[in-house]
């Protein structure tokens, strides 16, 4: 086993598992799940092993598309610090989620389809992590979108699930359009798509700053789509229609983080275009704040967590825009993957215990019935809201510090968001677990089986510990910005307590429905409605106009005119067939005489 071959094995084992499950999975359920878990486990072990090895010197790369000097697209692996860390994150969380799925999906339909989809997803995600050039990354980017579509629409007989899958894919496609344009811009300027060669070509790119800025912003469009940033975030809450393990793996920990990972991968190029970094920071900051506002008024347990994910992704994107190295947002990605995945798995545990009821206002008083889930959820919540000592505190507050120093407005927006985060997180815990049961399901809730609880415990540990400096230093090299306002060090823990206090005040007693109702947030800032209006009026209107043009103008010109012309000719010529023999003889004679004249006297 060498460091050169290990990445290939890590990448292709899940694909092999997916193919095998596709052919043989329907024969036995244990076979499908064990193939999937085995492939994830192989990837996990090899990733940890690879992490401890030094970077390989060369690279195995073969040229998949070779058009001479114009374009050479290789298929190769990049094994550097960034990808090794990401490999560890992806494979470990994947293994835990796969194991959890054993319990969650036991009574659900489409068992083998699910595991095949998960294995395919793992293959695609690892492809993004290991890709060494833009085109390969784009291919796996699309594959990840496809796996997401398959998994979101797992319960395909439900209209809402099918529509959610479609929406995810289509909205991602919009972002990917910009992404592809950005790749083309960069290729047109430098003639290559390989990351290392692009990095070497940065001085050349710096000569045309406007072009470089536009290219970087276009590439960022891919992240806007994939990581659910502000204009294109609408698909992520709807993607909660998929099974909860899918939501935790794809739409919390890994797939949505792929956007941030991609930005981290091309960070040297982004650094050369400071205006692009400003755009990125603004979109990240606004997303983070707006999503937190929307999360305070949601009533579905998974949707609260979905908006929370969008908000935290906004933090990561903001981090890319303001920090000095890419390790700062990647650190938050790392901790976020742990605690957000944990929160989702706990939510899944609650949902299974509640017989698939997801409205938090029908839950309540579950803390005695599901104690381990309760404790795990506390661990995740404390990490998410930035309680000092937990992992989220270290990573999130680092980003906030950098933001306050480099983009003050966004920085203070992020500070406010931290308070909101604490508020809605504890709102969730108090409404779900405290108080009394609000319905029959809540009264009959029970704890989840062990196979689901063990991943919860496994994830709770890094949620607590992963931020501590000794552990952080193993994975990342981060530094604080110079001249951080001292106010921040006091303000952030204070906001955490304020958020917690607000949630305690409003939700800790016995409440039947939400005492606060802010329609703007509950209706998600009306962005979904805006998109609906856009599609219905603009797109459908355009389609109607084009359809009218096609039917009346194109069809009329191309079809009706020849039709009428032919009919007219036929109508006219019919009058020559009058049945009178002498008339025919006359025409014959006239023609012959005419021909004679033509031949003789021309």
């Amino acid at each position, binding site marked *: 086993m060498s460091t050169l071959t290990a990445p290939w094995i890590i990448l292709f084992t899940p694909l092999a598992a997916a193919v095998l499950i596709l052919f043989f999975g329907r024969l036995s359920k244990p076979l499908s799940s064990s193939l999937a878990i085995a492939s994830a486990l192989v990837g996990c072990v090899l990733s940890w092993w690879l992490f401890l090895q030094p970077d390989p010197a060369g690279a195995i790369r073969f040229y998949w598309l070779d058009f001479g000097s114009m374009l050479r697209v290789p298929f190769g692996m990049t094994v550097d610090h960034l990808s090794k860390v990401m490999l560890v994150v992806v494979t470990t969380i994947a293994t835990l989620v796969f194991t959890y799925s054993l319990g969650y999906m036991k009574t659900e339909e489409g068992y083998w389809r699910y595991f095949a989809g998960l294995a395919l997803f793992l293959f695609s995600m690892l492809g993004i992590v290991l890709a060494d050039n833009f085109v390969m990354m784009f291919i796996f980017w699309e594959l990840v979108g496809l796996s997401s579509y398959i998994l979101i629409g797992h319960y395909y007989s439900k209209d809402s699930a099918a529509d959610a899958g479609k929406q995810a894919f289509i909205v991602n496609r919009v972002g990917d359009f910009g992404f592809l344009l950005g790749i083309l811009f960069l290729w047109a300027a430098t003639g290559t798509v390989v990351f290392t060669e692009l990095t070497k070509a940065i001085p050349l790119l710096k000569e045309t700053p406007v072009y470089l800025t536009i290219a970087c912003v276009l590439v960022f469009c891919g992240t806007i789509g994939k990581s659910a940033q502000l204009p294109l975030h609408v698909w992520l809450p709807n993607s909660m229609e998929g099974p909860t393990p899918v939501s935790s793996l794809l739409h919390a920990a890994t797939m949505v983080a792929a956007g941030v990972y991609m930005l981290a991968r091309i960070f040297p190029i982004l650094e050369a275009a400071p205006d692009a970094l400003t755009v990125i920071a603004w979109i990240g900051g606004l997303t983070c704040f707006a999503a937190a506002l929307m999360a305070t008024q949601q009533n579905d347990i998974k949707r609260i967590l979905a908006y929370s994910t969008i908000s935290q992704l906004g933090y990561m994107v903001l981090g890319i825009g303001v920090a000095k190295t890419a390790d700062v947002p990647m650190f938050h990605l790392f901790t976020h993957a742990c605690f957000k995945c944990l929160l989702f798995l706990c939510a899944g545990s609650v949902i299974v215990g509640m017989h698939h009821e997801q409205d938090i206002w029908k839950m309540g008083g579950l803390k005695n019935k599901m104690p381990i889930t309760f404790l795990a959820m506390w661990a995740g919540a404390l990490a998410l809201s930035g309680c000092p000592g937990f992992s989220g505190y270290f990573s999130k507050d680092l980003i906030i510090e950098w933001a306050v120093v480099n983009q003050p407005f966004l920085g203070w927006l992020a500070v406010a968001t931290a308070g909101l985060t604490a508020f809605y997180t504890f709102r969730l815990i108090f409404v779900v677990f405290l108080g009394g049961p609000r319905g029959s399901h809540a009264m009959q809730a029970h704890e989840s089986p062990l196979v689901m609880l063990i991943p919860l415990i496994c994830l709770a540990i890094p949620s607590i510990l992963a931020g501590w400096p000794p552990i952080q230093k193993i994975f990342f090299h981060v530094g604080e910005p110079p001249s951080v306002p001292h106010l921040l060090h006091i303000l952030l823990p204070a906001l955490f307590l304020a958020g917690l206090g607000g949630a305690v005040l409003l939700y800790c007693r016995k409440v039947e429905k939400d005492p606060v109702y802010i329609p703007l947030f509950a209706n998600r800032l009306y962005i979904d409605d805006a998109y609906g209006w856009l599609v219905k009026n603009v797109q459908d209107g355009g389609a109607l106009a084009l359809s009218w043009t096609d039917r009346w103008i194109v069809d009329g010109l191309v079809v009706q005119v020849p039709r009428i012309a032919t009919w007219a000719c036929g109508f006219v010529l019919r*009058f020559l*067939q*009058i*049945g*009178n*023999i*002498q008339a025919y*003889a006359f025409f014959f*004679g006239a023609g012959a005489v005419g021909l004679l004249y033509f031949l003789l006297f021309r």
Partner: protein
Amino acid sequence: MTTLANYLLVSGLLFSIGMAGVLLRRSILIIFMGLELMLNAANLSLVAFSRFHPVNGLPNYNAQVLVFFIITVAAAEVAVGLAIIVALYRAKRTTHVEDLDTLKF
């Protein structure tokens, strides 16, 4: 002294008379007779050419063989044509050409 032109002129006139008969008469039998006149005019011009361009001191008998064939074929054609006219008369009871106009659009 008759020249080739004379014969050709006569032949042409005969042809025109036949054509006039075809175009202007109303009875189908007379039209048929006009047709025979046209054929004969062609025969006349053929024989004239045969005589006026002799080969080795003899008229060009290839043309006369052609005339022979034409006469034969014309005879056969008359037979068949008249049979058709008879059948037509049996169906329509008229030989007036303007009444025979059912083959139209």
